[in-house]
Every structure is written in C-alpha cells, then in structure tokens.
C-alpha cells in the first residue's frame, strides 16, 4: 500500500511534466489560448456589454448560464450540508466499545467558553466596518473595476466568520434576520432567474441584456441586481455553512 500511493504520485508527475513540456512559452501573446474567442471578447467586450471589467463581462454576459448554475451549485452545497442528519442523536447507544466517542461529546459545550484574546476582538471590531465597506465597494464597482459579486460574497462571509469567532455564534446569527434567512440564502439563484426572465422578455433570449445604447441605465441596473444577488446570497450561504459546521 505504501509504494502504491508513491507510484501513483510519480506516474501523475511524469504525465503532467509530459503535458506541460509541450505547452507554448509562458506569457507568449500568440499562444492558442489567446487567439480564440478571448481575443474577440477583449476587442468588442466593452461595446457589447458596457462593462469595463471583462472578467465580469465573461462571467455575467458571455457565460451567464455557467455562472447561473455555479450559483446553484453552492446553494446545493448548503442544502446538502443542512440536510445531513445530526450525528450525536443518530449514534447508537450500544457503542461502549468505542471509548474515544464519549470524550468527544464532553468537549462540545465547553468550546463556547473559550475566550478570545482582547487584541483579536479589538482588531475585528476596529476593522469590521472597513471590511464591510470594502466588500460593498467591490460589489458596486465590480463591473468597471476589479471586484464583483463573488469576491464581495467571500469578503462578507469572512467578516461574518470573524464576528462569529469573536462575539460568539449566537450574536453573529443575529446579523442574518431569521425570517428572511430562507429567502436570502436562495437569493443568488433567485435573482439570476428573475433577471434572466426580464432579459428574456426584453430581448427574446434568457439572460439576454438589452444591447442598444439607450438602454444603458437598464442594463446597468440588471447587472447590479445580479451582482447583489450573488454577493448577498453567497455571503449568507457562507455564513450558514459556517453555522452548520457545529460538530
């Protein structure tokens, strides 16, 4: 068994080395990856989508279906995590031949009592508002500058976890209103479906965006709505995943 794993790694390394040895020189502008559809996106992306950040343009317009299902994937992950049966209740009682399990359950409530260093608590309190503003800025300016819905969701999620670690899970849970939680965690797929349908009515194609210059404000509003859905939905999903991990 010992040599089998090593042999697998060696075979994988040799295969990968053979693969990358044939790649064109790194950073060459005429490599095949740059001469296909990417060049067209770079050339006409701003005119066709109105977004200066072409990564967002690819994400929301050219590959909108991909991103739609990506949002569905992370929502499904949350569904799967929440749907898992709770371990302790499900454990059979006749498990007296497994002593390590008992010592583990005893640690459960005690972990709430672990105090956080005052330095960490102060730094999180000090930086929390700035982190939130940064997340909002990267959300709102995501289609014209670096940033976007997913990045904003990651920053918001990290902020939530930091607050949960410092203030405790109960107080952090108040940040996500209980009544709206069900809708907020599905906001990504919901906003995508809504904006996709609006685009369908306006342009005849699902997830289509009105292309003419007169509809600039409307297109802008649709993009921002999708981005807000991704950011808020993603952040709430990350927060819920963290809350569901209580072992």
């Amino acid at each position: 068994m010992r040599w089998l794993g090593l042999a697998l790694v060696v075979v994988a390394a040799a295969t990968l080395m053979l693969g990358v040895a044939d790649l064109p020189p790194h950073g060459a502008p005429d490599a095949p990856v740059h001469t296909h559809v990417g060049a067209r996106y770079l050339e006409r992306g701003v005119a066709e989508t109105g977004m200066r950040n072409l990564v967002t343009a690819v994400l929301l317009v050219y590959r909108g279906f991909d991103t739609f299902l990506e949002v569905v994937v992370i929502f499904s992950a949350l569904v799967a995590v929440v749907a898992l049966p709770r371990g302790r209740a499900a454990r059979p009682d006749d498990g007296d031949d497994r002593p390590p399990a008992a010592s583990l359950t005893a640690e459960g409530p005690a972990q709430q009592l672990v105090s956080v260093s005052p330095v960490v608590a102060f730094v999180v309190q000090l930086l929390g508002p700035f982190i939130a503003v940064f997340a909002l800025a990267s959300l709102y300016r995501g289609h014209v500058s670096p940033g976007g819905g997913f990045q904003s969701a990651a920053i918001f999620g990290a902020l939530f976890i930091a607050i949960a670690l410092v203030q405790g899970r109960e107080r952090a849970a108040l940040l996500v209103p209980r009544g709206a939680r069900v809708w907020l965690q599905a906001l990504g797929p919901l906003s995508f479906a809504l904006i996709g349908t609006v685009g369908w009515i306006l342009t005849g194609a699902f997830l289509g965006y009105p292309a003419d210059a007169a509809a600039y404000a409307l297109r802008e509003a649709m993009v921002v709505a999708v981005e807000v859905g991704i950011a808020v939905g993603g952040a709430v999903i990350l927060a819920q995943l963290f809350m569901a991990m209580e072992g």
Partner: protein
Amino acid sequence: MVLFGVDVDYLAFVVLFCVGLYMLVRKSNLLKKLLGLNVMETAVFAFLVTAGMIEGADPPIRTAGTGPLFANPIPHAMVLTGIVVAVSVTAVALALIVQIHAHYGTIEVDELKGLP
C-alpha cells in the same frame, strides 16, 4: 525561466499538484486528505490563471491608459467558477467529516476501517 525543459511556472504547478495528490493518497487523517484536495485545486487554478497571462499585459479591465495588450479574461472567469465549486466540495466534505467525528470519535481512515 526554464528548468528541466519546462517553464518554471508550469513546474510549480506540477510540484504543487503532486504535493496535494500525495497528501490525498497517503495521509490517513480525513482533514489532511481534504487539505490535499484543496492544494490540488489551488494548483489547477494557478495553472489556468498562468495560462491566461501575457508577458507585460494589463489586467482585462479596459479603462483609460491601459493596453494595448490585455490578459485573457476567460481563464479568470473559469477559475472563479472553479473556486466556487471547490468551496462547495470543501463545505460538504467538512460537514461529512464533522458527522463522522461525531459518530465514531475518529477521523483516521485506518481506525475507521471495519467499524460498523
């Protein structure tokens, strides 16, 4: 920079990928296996972003004073998709590991073998 006939950026991808694969295959602790999987994912993301890069190019954000060369936006968008999938896989795996821990009191694969 070229090392062993391969560009050093691609070589770093191979090394990182194999480190992750080794952790995934050889470690008995489920958490370490999951970490190995994440290292492998990171290697693939780094490889894709590296492939989209052009020497001396600007990021693909077309504002005044940039260009004429831009990095390829498609690998970036694909990596974003990949990161979301990686987060989802990690979350489900972590939840399963937590449940295994609660059921059996261990997350070592060789101790879990043969348990009912």
